């Protein structure tokens, strides 16, 4: 891309709006939507799309952070970030040396995993979704990874304490590597790791993941800056769309059906995965 046309600007803003809306509604960073949209629909080079997507992931995290309900456990997030940022830098550096066909194949696998995570989340009982949508404030215990939050649905104070921290660190390292390499947030790995592996309540895990993805993406975006893959004129419209989409998503969350959105997104991601596999094999055949 040597110059951005008005049509391409409109398309980038549109992709950003959809990704931002989905990000604030179903808790994904947006990269899983923006990267394939840019590569497949707008023919943007893979590393440029990843770099723009990382900026978009930061924008999603920052926008969601402005409307935070205080549920994120910052000590938990910071502890896991030690591993995640290392993974992100390594992933960003490694991505330059990996062929686009391999990256497309890995992306296809990540898209399928995210689709499965979305389908699992969509099967939660309706009461659970209502419960998760309710507002609440969290507290952290200084000096440890523990805390509590008010569960308005159950009408009580829920206490929690992190267990098996090495499991969380190991998964975070992998999630960071995938984020740096593919421009995705990695929440589909971190949230289940915190919830199932570390016994952190899903609401706390989700909010903490949102806090984390911005820091992770910031770590790898500087590596992409060094390689000249951050093109402000491509990332800019995407960011504006993300901010607008997140804003709309936060304000319309009560009127939408998250389970339906998650199922539609899961099907879309399967289609994206198939397309990425075709691209991957096509590139191999061509190369």
């Amino acid at each position: 891309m040597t110059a951005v046309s008005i049509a391409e600007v409109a398309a980038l803003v549109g992709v950003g709006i959809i990704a931002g809306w989905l990000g604030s509604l179903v808790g994904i960073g947006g990269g899983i939507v923006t990267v394939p949209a840019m590569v497949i629909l707008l023919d943007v080079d893979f590393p440029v799309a990843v770099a723009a997507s990382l900026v978009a992931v930061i924008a999603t995290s920052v926008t969601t952070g402005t409307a935070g309900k205080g549920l994120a456990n910052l000590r938990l997030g910071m502890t896991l970030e030690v591993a995640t940022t290392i993974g992100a830098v390594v992933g960003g550096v490694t991505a330059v040396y990996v062929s686009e066909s391999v990256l497309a194949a890995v992306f296809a696998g990540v898209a399928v995993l995210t689709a499965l995570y979305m389908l699992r989340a969509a099967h939660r009982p309706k009461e659970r979704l209502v419960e998760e949508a309710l507002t609440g404030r969290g507290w952290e215990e200084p000096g440890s990874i523990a805390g509590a939050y008010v569960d308005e649905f159950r009408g009580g104070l829920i206490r929690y304490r992190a267990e098996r921290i090495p499991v969380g660190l190991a998964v975070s390292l992998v999630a960071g590597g995938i984020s740096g390499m593919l421009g995705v947030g990695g929440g589909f790995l971190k949230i289940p790791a915190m919830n199932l592996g570390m016994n952190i309540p899903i609401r706390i895990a989700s909010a903490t993941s949102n806090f984390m993805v911005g820091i992770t993406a910031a770590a790898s975006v500087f590596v992409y800056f060094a390689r000249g893959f951050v093109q402000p004129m491509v990332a800019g419209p995407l960011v504006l769309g993300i901010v607008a989409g997140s804003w709309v998503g936060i304000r319309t969350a009560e009127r939408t059906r998250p389970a339906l959105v998650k199922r539609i997104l899961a099907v879309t991601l399967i289609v994206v995965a198939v397309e990425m596999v075709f691209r991957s094999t096509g590139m191999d055949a061509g190369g």
Partner: protein
Amino acid sequence: MPVAETAARRVQAIYRVGLALGAGLILAGWIWALVREQTAVVSPRLGALLTTGSIADRAVGLGVLFLAVTPVAVVIDLVGSWWREGDRRFALVGAMVIAVLVLAVSFGHG
């Protein structure tokens, strides 16, 4: 107000300032680019962000940079907050994250 709640509110304030500056500069740069028809794509290195391309490129690039450093500013603020609170263990954990981010920024300078 509890110390932890004050820290959470300050983090939220940093996010708001970063978003306003970042998105504001990107929007201003893009309006300038469309008015002046300066939509050529450049790929600036971090150290040359303010010297590469047109005024629009520089404004959008600076906006992207503001967004990128916002989470870094949050980490720095939390480290200071935990240190003042006497929570040295997590201040140290945060310092380790800052060290990795500094390493990443040094990569950004090429």
